[in-house]
């Protein structure tokens, strides 16, 4: 096993360390840092917009680049949080609390360095974590039959609902709408068309790109245009010194370890990911601290823990996608889309049929983390100055880019009308405070769920007991039931609401 792990990592580094793949990792990390720094453009929207471009690349190159954007954004997001008190990413909201306080006390350098070093450590650990836990999980996945897959997806959707921000009812609604969108098109078994409204372009279902670009990319632009322009300057920030003091290290290394561990585990959970991990880590640090009153006034643990956690989670959230074919959050759903566009069905088979792909991606994460450390620490001044970029130039360019992206992938005017339609729909949802992420998960998982449900029932000749008779499926459904019970019980619901308010 040990030797295998190193052998596999060697394959991975062999694949990832090619000149062009290192280049793609660098592009991904740069773009990720850029969008991490710029408030208003998140990794989901960026990856959605870049999907059409990956089309012309090889599968490994496109995965390396998209993954780089995702974890690069986790690094970049912390920079603006600390210096300007403006989270570039949702996952770095908590970093603002103590990070910006540190900056105001003239310790910006220490905060930035600890954030970057903590992220780097977490990233390295998470890489090993993915390498060690991927194969055993994939071995389990090979035992999965149709009923097990169905139950797994039910569990995934239910946890996605529980862990979504805001109202549970809205999240459930979004999942259901996503499932319905997933039903559009020709039914494979009977050839009947469903919800196509007589439009032949919908016979093959709604394409992934118009949906995500409309609901994430374009809505994000509209949303930003609605916000009043805030003064975005990093005033009165001085870098006294970048290198943290001995005392800073002493105070933060435990927090980094705790954050890394917590983030690695939360990243694997369906519905989990970077945002949840950083919030959970902050709460944990506050709980274990000897003097919790320091938090909010520049406690370095409040930066170190969450930053390590969000980066670890960003990377371990690849595990369920690569081994079970189950995307655990919206970014992973997009990665799944990217793989499918390349003709690769994510899942355990990938590890056997394309070991270079799995291990190459794992290795590239480690390479990317090293790059990010270099990109972020010495070049921090450049990134901060980017905040002065006029959005009047940026937004029209992004919008045009979105439209061309959709059209280039499938040259068909219906695709553009769908994109516009989903943009309007997404905007309305946003106004009602409905998160689109559960919808995307429902949309991606819906068809798979239906396929496995029907297949399981055909194999059992219509007997629904098959879902309880198979041990894997039974365990997954039991976990789902426990989770549902948890949200229904009023006491726990209140804690959850409180936790998200923090």
């Amino acid at each position: 096993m040990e030797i295998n792990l190193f052998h596999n990592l060697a394959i991975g580094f062999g694949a990832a360390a090619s000149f062009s793949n290192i280049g793609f990792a660098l592009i991904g990390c740069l773009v990720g840092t850029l969008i991490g720094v710029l408030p208003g453009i998140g990794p989901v929207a960026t990856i959605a917009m870049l999907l059409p471009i990956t089309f012309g690349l090889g599968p490994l190159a496109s995965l390396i680049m998209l993954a780089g954007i995702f974890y690069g954004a986790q690094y970049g997001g912390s920079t603006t949080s600390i210096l300007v008190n403006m989270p570039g990413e949702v996952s770095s909201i908590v970093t603002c609390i103590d990070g910006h306080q540190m900056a105001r006390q003239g310790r910006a350098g220490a905060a930035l360095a600890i954030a970057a070093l903590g992220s780097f450590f977490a990233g390295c650990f998470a890489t090993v974590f993915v390498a060690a836990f991927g194969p055993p999980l994939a071995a389990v996945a090979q035992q999965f039959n149709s009923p097990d897959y169905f139950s797994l997806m039910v569990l995934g959707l239910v946890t996605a609902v529980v862990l979504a921000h805001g109202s549970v009812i809205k999240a459930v609604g979004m999942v259901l709408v996503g499932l319905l969108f997933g039903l559009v098109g020709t039914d494979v078994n009977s050839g009947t068309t469903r919800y196509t409204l007589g439009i032949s372009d919908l016979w093959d279902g709604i394409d992934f790109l118009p949906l995500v670009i409309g609901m994430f990319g374009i809505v994000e632009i509209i949303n930003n245009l609605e916000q009043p322009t805030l003064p975005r300057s990093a005033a009165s920030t001085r870098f006294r010194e970048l290198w943290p003091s001995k005392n800073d290290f002493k105070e933060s290394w435990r927090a980094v370890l705790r954050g890394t561990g917590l983030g690695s585990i939360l990243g694997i959970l369906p519905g989990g990911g970077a945002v949840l991990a950083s919030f959970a880590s902050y709460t944990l640090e506050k709980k274990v601290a000897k003097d919790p009153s320091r938090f909010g006034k520049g406690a370095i643990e409040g930066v170190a823990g969450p930053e390590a956690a969000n980066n670890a989670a960003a990377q371990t959230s690849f595990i369920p996608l690569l081994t079970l074919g189950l995307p655990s959050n919206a970014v992973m759903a997009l990665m799944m889309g990217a793989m499918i566009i390349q003709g690769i069905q994510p899942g355990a088979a990938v590890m056997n049929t394309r070991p270079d792909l799995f291990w190459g991606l794992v290795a590239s994460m480690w390479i990317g983390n090293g790059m990010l450390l270099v990109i972020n620490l010495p070049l921090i001044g450049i990134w901060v100055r980017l905040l002065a970029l006029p959005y009047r130039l940026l937004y029209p360019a992004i919008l045009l880019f979105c439209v061309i992206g959709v059209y280039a992938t499938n040259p068909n005017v219906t695709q553009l009308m769908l994109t516009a339609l989903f943009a309007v729909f997404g905007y309305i949802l946003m106004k009602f405070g409905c998160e689109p992420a559960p919808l995307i998960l429902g949309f991606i998982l819906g068809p798979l769920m239906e396929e496995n449900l029907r297949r399981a029932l055909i194999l059992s000749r219509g007997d629904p007991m098959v879902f309880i008779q198979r041990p894997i499926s039974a365990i997954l459904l039991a976990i789902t039931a426990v989770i549902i019970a948890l949200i229904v019980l009023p006491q726990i619901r209140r804690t959850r609401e409180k936790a998200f308010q923090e």
Partner: protein
Amino acid sequence: MKLRSKWLFYSFSLAMFLAALVGSLPGTACAQQYPSQDIRLICAFPPGSGADVLVRYFGEKLRPIANRTIIVENKAGAQSNIATEYTARAKPDGYTIYVHAASTVAASMHLFKKPPVDVTKALQIAATINQQPFMMVVDAKSPYKTVADVTAAMKQKGPKASYATSAPNGTLMGEVYKARTGVQALEINYKTAADSLNEMLSGRTDYGMMDPQYSMAQAREGRLRVLAVSSGRRLQASPDIPTMNESGVRMDLTGWWAAMVPAGTPKPIVAKINEWFVQIVKTDETKKFLNSYGGDPFIISPDEAQALFEKTEKEWGEYIKLAKIEPKG
């Protein structure tokens, strides 16, 4: 500062320009001497699929021979009806070549209530590419060594038996097998062949009718055993696998790929396209490539091919009737 924002703006513009290039279609120019403009190969499957790789292989090989830019256009969906219709409606000028399984195109006449076009009248076969059978597979650990073993065991199992398919050809082969032997197994349809592996290895499905590429790959990995091919004669690439005919189940279901053009394409242009494809199919490299897909290279003249197209259309119609497959609406 100004400079930086400009730089960003320019890089976005560059990205847009590149994206626009990807999406742009070739302009139409009048043909004086064929080929005088870019040639489009139509693929009925999405990019990255096994079929797409095959079409792109021919695109790659065609480029230096035709001395023109070859664009592969993916018109996926509706079980290749979209691509078929698209080609049939294209100008018959030799710049739109549909590279697909002609047998599937022929079968579409019987698989749908309203096929989009009368394929044998709307399309002309310019060149044939390969011949490939479907395969009957079982779990490599199962006791079944021959088709007869499976038949005997399935008869014992009666309606409790299940089998996996993943494409219309697999469905057809499965139904013909059942009609000829009286086996009552229930079909379990999978979206991709790979999806069926776990359930076949766990014994939930008893046997499968799968495409040759998947079957051969899994057989090489030692997971599945190939019992028979659906074609009338054995494969040159794997001569040790018996045919269903030899195993006592009468059928000749041979899929064959071809380069098709809209009917009415001038004879000299069809001849030119035929010459190109023959030149590619003949090479050892292509033979190896096609063998890896579980098929053999296949070269006949355009006229013979058109006759085969019509024959295939009739024969598959009979098989579809025998298999009692309802045409889809």
